[in-house]
């Protein structure tokens, strides 16, 4: 292998692929039965973390950064003057195998710029996955990007070798897409998604009758949206995320704060701050929807089209709905416990278990790990000193903010700092 050439390509193509945030390697079932290489069963593993704090779990590269499209938000757009490179299929296979054997990665995340046309590109991606599975006996995780506009036959084949498939919708609104990526059509994105969804359903049904039905994308499909590139509200983003969860059986929707990569009048200029706090709030909302039993219109609606910056979405919901509180932790059902700000699902489970033995008081709750600084205003327990003052939402919010420190506080606080 020509080391220097590979090294150069890897630098270019890894650099171009890093804006894809998805890096999960969990949820697949591919046990190593053939004494081959790799085993991806159940949990994912983050093998390292980059200095921006993001997980490195897969070898995330583009097959090539040549692209026929000119999407304004994308670093590999046609009109951008950057170095271009392309991997050979065998080179990607070798890199993956050798990284995997050294326990650097969980598998491969392969994406690509679109060269010639969608199908031609998709075929190349599939060829890599096929080679890994069939020739190298590789049972590790493979995440393939579905190229917008790829044909149904190819999407079917891709699912046979990949663990997860994803299409990045990137722009949450159709109007935004028209503005920033005029060559792409909304249907191009949804078509492969729909095919994958239908195949997943078909697999599930056939599996019931024929146990040996070949696996189809066992870790499901995911998508990604850029946040803060066009003027969309949090409501727009979360409603379209809900749409994808519901109608396309998505495993995950990722939100990616827009990192300015181009001087374009349609976009935030280079050097403007990445909206990390907003991204964080969107993920919190996503979790509330998927695990905490919230409906999206409870958190975001026409009266509240954007999430609060200074408090998390659950607390903000609670402050708007004080009529549900205080909740008695020794009696309330799980659903209501999960809605108390400061209580995570792990704490809820522990409380439900522990209260079978005795009534819980502040001391127990503290030891279990409940964030009492927030939770204490919203619950009562087996203790006499709960919050008995008649506080309104504004006061509670003020007291919580006063007694806590947020890592993003300096971004929105009006308080000038004495140093720095």
């Amino acid at each position: 292998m020509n080391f220097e050439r590979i090294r150069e390509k890897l630098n270019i193509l890894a650099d171009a692929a890093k804006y894809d945030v998805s890096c999960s390697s969990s949820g697949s079932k591919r046990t190593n039965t053939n004494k081959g290489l790799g085993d991806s069963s159940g949990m994912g593993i983050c093998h390292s973390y980059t200095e921006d704090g993001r997980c490195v779990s897969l070898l995330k590269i583009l097959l090539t950064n040549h692209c026929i499209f000119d999407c304004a938000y994308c670093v590999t757009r046609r009109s951008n003057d950057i170095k271009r490179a392309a991997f050979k299929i065998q080179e990607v296979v070798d890199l993956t195998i050798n990284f995997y054997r050294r326990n650097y990665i969980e598998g491969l995340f392969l994406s690509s710029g679109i060269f010639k046309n969608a199908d031609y590109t998709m075929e190349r991606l599939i060829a890599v996955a096929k080679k890994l599975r069939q020739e190298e006996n590789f049972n590790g995780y493979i995440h393939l990007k579905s190229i917008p506009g790829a044909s149904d036959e190819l999407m079917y084949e891709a699912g046979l070798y990949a663990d997860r498939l994803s299409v990045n919708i990137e722009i949450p609104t159709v109007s935004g897409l028209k503005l920033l990526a005029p060559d792409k059509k909304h249907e191009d994105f949804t078509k492969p998604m729909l095919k994958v969804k239908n195949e997943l359903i078909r697999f599930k049904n056939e599996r019931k009758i024929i146990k040996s039905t070949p696996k189809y994308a066992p870790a499901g499909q995911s998508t990604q949206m850029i946040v803060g590139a066009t003027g969309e509200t949090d409501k727009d983003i979360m409603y379209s995320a809900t749409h994808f969860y519901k109608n396309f059986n998505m495993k995950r929707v990722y939100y990616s704060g827009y990192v300015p990569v181009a001087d374009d009048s349609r976009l935030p200029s280079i050097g403007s701050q990445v909206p990390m706090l907003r991204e964080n709030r969107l993920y919190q909302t996503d979790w509330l929807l998927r695990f905490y039993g919230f409906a999206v219109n409870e958190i975001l609606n026409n009266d509240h089209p954007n999430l609060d910056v200074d408090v998390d979405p659950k607390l903000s919901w609670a402050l708007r709905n004080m009529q549900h509180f205080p909740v008695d932790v020794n009696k309330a059902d799980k659903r209501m416990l999960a809605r108390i700000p400061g209580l995570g699902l792990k704490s809820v489970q522990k409380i439900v278990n522990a209260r079978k033995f005795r009534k819980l008081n502040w001391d127990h709750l503290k030891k279990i790990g409940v964030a009492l600084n927030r939770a204490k205003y919203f619950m009562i327990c087996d203790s006499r000193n709960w919050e008995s003052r008649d506080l309104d939402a504004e006061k509670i919010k003020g007291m919580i903010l006063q007694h806590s420190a947020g890592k993003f506080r300096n971004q929105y606080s009006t308080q000038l700092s004495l140093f720095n």
Partner: protein
Amino acid sequence: MQNSKTLLYDGSFNGFLTAVFVAFEEKLDVVDIQRNSKGQSGLFSETETVFTNVEKAKRVWNGIRNKSNNAISQVYFAFLSEEEGVELTLYTYIRKLMATRNAKQTDYSDGTVLRISKLARSVGREKHRMEAFVRFQLTKDNIYFANIEPDFDVLPLISKHFRSRYADQQWLIYDVKRKYGIFYNLDYVEMVSLNLNEIHFNKIHKSNAFLNQEYDYQTLWNDYFKSSNIKSRINRKLHTQHVPKRYWKYLSEKKETA
């Protein structure tokens, strides 16, 4: 009144379970259970050395497992934390478990139960970290070799993971701190101890135990690690939170900074 006793065992998990068995069988008033090597006798208690007996250990193991599968793994994990005094906490835990009819292991309002579950969690976390942070280097005799220095004795816990993952390559993971390792010879995993004259952490100096190609891959990995970083999102605090500094010296991607 019966004399209170300190039990000494050989440091193995089976040894500990035997000690628990003895304590139950002879209805001892146990003051402490200690490792032979760390034995420290109390002023008002007698010491008794317990000899490991696999049969007895198995009975305790089965007894706990019959109560709950979760409990037995909690006990094993917490034991591997090697924390000082964990044996006595475990003994109290097992007694409580046996004395209660319903799932005592989920009573998180009980101090002992919570303590054991927290210990088991941190050992579990370390196990998971080791599954992530082991970095194999290919030696000239075709063995994938890694040094580790985990906080807890997690080698017995990670062996299955690596065995099923790297079924077609020989590998050796060596715990530098506890001076033993596990070696997979393509058939099964065995425990080994080595006379390492050199600990292979990620220094820039190349050792001749490894192939040149090995260093090429380390360079590629190092490059990859750097190119996947987004500079405008830098967050070093989060980075060190996820990859604590004590692990850096064995991570090839942290080569220059260690």
